[in-house]
């Protein structure tokens, strides 16, 4: 415990600015992943435990596309699309077979996919951790702002994640696609009875959720090391975010991501040894006092 250090940090603008942005960076990547989890859960009522693997595949795909094309933007887009398509495949071939059955059966299918994809990654790309390196367009000196330091790439990352989140929210709230999806989330059979092919919508939602994970992987690739099993640690955190925000709520995921990001960044100064513990504590408290999460509606 070093609460003095925390107080000292909060007292100086440079430290506050730096830690705030660092919290946002951690939070926004988490948000991209968690929003996929929460979207899929909200509509399909399925917990996708394999989401971390999609994130990993996104990062590896971006790495390969980058080697091939040399353009970071092309590879990021390519990774998102590729993982989105993989997600549709995963939904059609595997997950759709266990809809409506035991939650634990769905869990088992996801676990199998996690195991298989970890091993396939190791076979294709090898066990050595890979690094994509910073694309040249972002090799710029950090921006100074009110005494704080913000790397340009991270600024891009935060803005990109926010833009994707906003787009997702608009699609869900403003478009016909979104209204069908929302209707399907509440009563799938009814929507189906109206002559809409719900299965296609399910696959699309799964694909979008997966593409979000792929995009997160691509955004993380320049700064995180790529190893088999890299989806593992991100998975638990994205679940904490999903639960705190409320299962099914994209706004909730956004707010909870920021909460977790700030807990990490300021926690590392104030209580470095118990940051993980505090995250689980927040999750436990939310579950005890408002089980449906900050922005969630009670579970059916």
């Amino acid at each position, binding site marked *: 415990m070093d609460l003095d250090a925390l107080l000292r940090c909060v007292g100086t603008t440079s430290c506050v600015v730096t830690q705030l942005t660092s919290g946002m960076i951690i939070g926004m990547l988490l948000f991209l992943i968690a929003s996929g989890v929460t979207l899929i859960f909200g509509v399909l009522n399925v917990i996708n435990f394999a989401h971390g693997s999609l994130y990993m595949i996104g990062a590896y795909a971006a790495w390969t596309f980058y080697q091939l094309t040399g353009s970071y933007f092309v590879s990021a887009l390519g990774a998102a699309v590729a993982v989105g398509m993989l997600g549709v495949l995963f939904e059609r071939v595997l997950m759709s077979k*266990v809809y409506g059955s035991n939650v634990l059966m769905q869990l*088992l299918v996801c676990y199998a996919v996690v*195991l298989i994809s970890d091993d396939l990654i*190791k076979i294709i790309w090898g066990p050595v951790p890979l690094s994509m390196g910073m694309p040249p367009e972002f090799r710029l000196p950090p921006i100074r702002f009110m005494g704080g330091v913000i790397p340009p790439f991270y600024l891009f990352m935060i803005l990109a994640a926010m833009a994707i989140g906003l787009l997702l929210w608009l699609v869900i709230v403003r478009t016909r696609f979104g209204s069908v999806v929302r209707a399907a989330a509440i009563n799938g059979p009814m929507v189906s009875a109206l002559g809409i092919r719900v299965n296609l919508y399910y696959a699309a939602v799964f694909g979008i959720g997966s593409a979000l994970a792929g995009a997160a992987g691509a955004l993380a690739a320049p700064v995180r090391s790529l190893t088999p099993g890299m989806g593992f640690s991100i998975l638990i955190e994205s679940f904490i975010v999903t639960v705190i925000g409320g299962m099914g709520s994209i706004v909730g995921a956004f707010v909870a991501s920021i909460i977790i990001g700030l807990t990490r960044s300021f926690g590392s100064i104030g209580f470095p040894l118990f940051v993980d*513990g505090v995250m689980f504590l927040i999750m436990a408290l939310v579950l005890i006092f408002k*089980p*449906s999460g900050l922005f969630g509606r009670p*579970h059916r």
Partner: protein
Amino acid sequence: MAGRWRDLGLAALGLLVLLLVPVVGAPPAIRDFIMFGMAYGLLAMSLNLLIGYTGLVSFGHAMFFAAGAYAFGLAMQSGKFSIPGAFVLAMAFTATMALIVGAICVRLNEIYFAFLTLAFQMLFYNIILGWVSFTGGDQGLMGGIPRPKFLGIDLADRTQLYIFCSVAFVVCIAILRQVVTSPFGYTLRMIRDNQERAAFLGINVTMVKLACFVISACIAGVGGILLTLFVSGAYPNFGFWTTSGEAIFMILLGGSNVFLGPLVGTVILRLLNDITVSYTSHTELVLGIVILVLVLGLRKGPLDLLADRWENRRQAKAQAVRDAADKDAQAGRDA
């Protein structure tokens, strides 16, 4: 009552078979396999009391596995306790912890219960990792667990350890069997099938769930003790969420609706693990594919499947008997 005597008889028979293993000169590897299986078997069997019988899907059951292991290991390493003393202490610790965690968790339903137990498990895990001076942090309890003799029993001897584990294991399974066949066990099933109805009948649902939670945690704790004795140490990953996950897979691989299903699942998963590990360095790939085939092919645990078939056949037979009786009655009227 007859059922109870039959169960106890079967338990005694099971123990006899287990005890015969070293007598007939089975190689140590088989004994090791069984001992390892018994530790994880207790974890899976006790978790199924929550999942299969009460409908409480816990993602955090391994915390009690670790609680038993650490409490027992630390007590033994302190040198102040005999093995039975440390055993009792570990049970008391696990039960207290389960009482506190359970009191908070069992109020929640379904997925929220699952996530809250997960959160508590990870809190506990982080405490084990962080409290280095007491728990050894990520290195676990090093230097071996001392095993002083008690009542002439020497657990440093592998055969005696095997016998000790077998007895503890069978006693725990017998206790579980008594629980699920008692009126209390039927109450659990009623809660699983329809919680509101149970409440209307005047059952204190929260208290029953809590009692079930504590019993199952204690049995998991015994599993942890057995594993501690086997590896002569306790490690944080006993209480990591992946261990809870493994227990769930054991239940699913075996079947949650048949009493011994989780045990069968334990054996399947351990065999799968041991065989893939010896054959290939791509253990994950093989295990993943096998799980997919099992889940998508069978959709159920093998034992559940057998039980369903048996039930169908029994009903078909009963139907046939009824049909025949109807026909007879019809014939009688016609005559």
